[in-house]
């Protein structure tokens, strides 16, 4: 079944929040104000004890849960003699985690963070070349043979223009998701950050993407340095990013939108207010939520 056919059967989740340990008590006491949660699988995979206890609390609270990884490293080139660049141990742990949380889909970044078996703990940009695209597509095929749930790729923010570009970033992303037949997780803050750092037109970028493949959207705040912007997820969403989000809403209708906040946490009511503001910018939100089984 093609991804676009499969997408028709995916649930509408609404507006959710990235689940972080520091937010957990507030999340559990405000269940009715949060439509769904996104979990970072690496915080639970291969771990036991009190980590899993926290996961049980979320399952008991009946949150729809989605997995958004940071260490899949879908862009890793295979080492000599290997057919793909993925870590088999990671794949097994991720598969078990997805099964446990009954995630309708899962996502990770269009980047690399593992080289020759060594993890770098950083989401690094790939060159926008056909070679890199082919490697990513092959890795996605291996991933989807291993894990059958729908997979979404996220556009990353980056601060150095990768070398040797055979095509624009939007063309490169389109090439990959169409050849791999997977979905898009569109991070609208990353689009904004890159547009400023790399002097690109964010609307033109959106218009070159296959937006019919967008299942989920990330929205977040960032930090302004003197000469470039850093995607920190540590500030409220700014007006310019909200405006870009509105432009996106005119172009597609994602099934889920997620507010990412990873540090410098404000009072929880402020985060709930941001969720509400996002809902107000989604024209079909109330209708779609009412249609949910």
């Amino acid at each position, binding site marked *: 079944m093609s991804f676009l056919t499969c997408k028709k059967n995916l649930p509408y989740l609404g507006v959710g929040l990235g689940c972080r340990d520091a937010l957990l008590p507030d999340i559990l006491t405000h269940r009715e104000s949060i439509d769904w949660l996104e979990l970072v699988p*690496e915080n639970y995979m291969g771990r036991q*004890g009190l980590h899993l*206890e926290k996961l049980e609390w979320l399952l008991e609270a009946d949150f729809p849960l989605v997995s958004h990884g940071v260490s899949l490293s879908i862009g890793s080139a295979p080492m000599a003699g290997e057919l793909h660049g993925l870590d088999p141990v990671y794949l097994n742990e991720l598969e078990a985690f997805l099964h446990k949380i009954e995630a309708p889909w899962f996502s990770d970044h269009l980047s690399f963070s593992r080289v*020759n078996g060594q993890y*770098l703990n*950083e989401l*690094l940009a790939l060159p926008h070349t056909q070679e890199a695209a082919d490697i990513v597509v092959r890795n996605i095929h291996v991933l989807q043979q291993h894990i059958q749930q729908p997979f979404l790729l996220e556009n990353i923010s980056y*601060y150095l223009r990768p*070398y040797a570009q055979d095509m624009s970033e939007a063309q490169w992303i389109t090439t990959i998701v169409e050849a791999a037949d997977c979905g898009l997780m569109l991070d609208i803050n990353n689009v904004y950050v890159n547009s400023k750092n790399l002097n690109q037109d964010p609307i033109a970028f959106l218009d070159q993407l296959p937006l019919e493949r967008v299942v989920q959207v990330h929205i977040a705040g960032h930090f302004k340095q003197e000469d470039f912007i*850093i995607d920190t997820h540590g500030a409220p969403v700014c007006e310019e990013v909200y405006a870009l989000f509105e432009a996106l809403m005119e172009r597609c209708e994602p099934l889920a939108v997620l507010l990412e906040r990873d540090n410098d946490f404000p009072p929880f009511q402020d985060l709930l207010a941001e969720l509400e503001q996002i809902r107000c910018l989604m024209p079909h939100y109330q209708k779609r939520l009412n249609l949910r089984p």
Partner: protein
Amino acid sequence: MNLLDYQAQWSAYLLQGSSAKLDSRFSTWLSSQPDARSHFYQHSVFSTLNDLFLALMPVTASYIKELPLFLETYQKTYPPRDAHLYNTLAGVVIFLEEHSIGESLPPWLVDIAKIEWSERLSYNAVGSQQSLLHPSVILCKTAYPVLEVWEDLKQAGWNNPPDIEPQAALVLLYARAEKSEIQKMSIGPLVGLWVELLQQGVAEAEALKVIQDLFLEQNLPVLTVEAQSSAILLKLRELGILS
């Protein structure tokens, strides 16, 4: 340059530390301010490790004056091998034991690191399936009685490290699930022996016999061991770590 070479260049740059620069071939691909922007990535990787160290091993970190240098050297020696960020610190105890960077550090810092890393292990405990003890139970052997002065150690820091006389000690760590936190307590040798035997899956009656035989061998008062053992087992049950 193919993709694997490109990625290997990044890997070397990010793991080498502050003295490293990206290969000159990269400079032709960079946009404006290449140094500041490329340094951002290196800074990000090291600040991640720094934040992780401060979060998971705060007391250990407070006794390391040159923390960035320590972490750079550590990361070169123990580069991250799996997808779990917290595992990046799995080698800290051995690193402190084996490397000369520890020369300027207090001799009891290894014990602090042992206890703090054991807290992580206890939090993430799988445990032995055959043991009657809760999986989070960890027995930590130290060369200095650091837990006795833990609160003072938390306050002192690298510019004022206290003198501690060496004396072997045992620390018991276990999870209190309802509080989502790890408890730690100093224990005596007999409790330690019980915990070790129970963790090996030895049944209570058999463990008691092993302990009695040990007392006999060492000419210790065997008559009291049974009463002391009953009290120990009762205490372990009260703590909720022995079923």
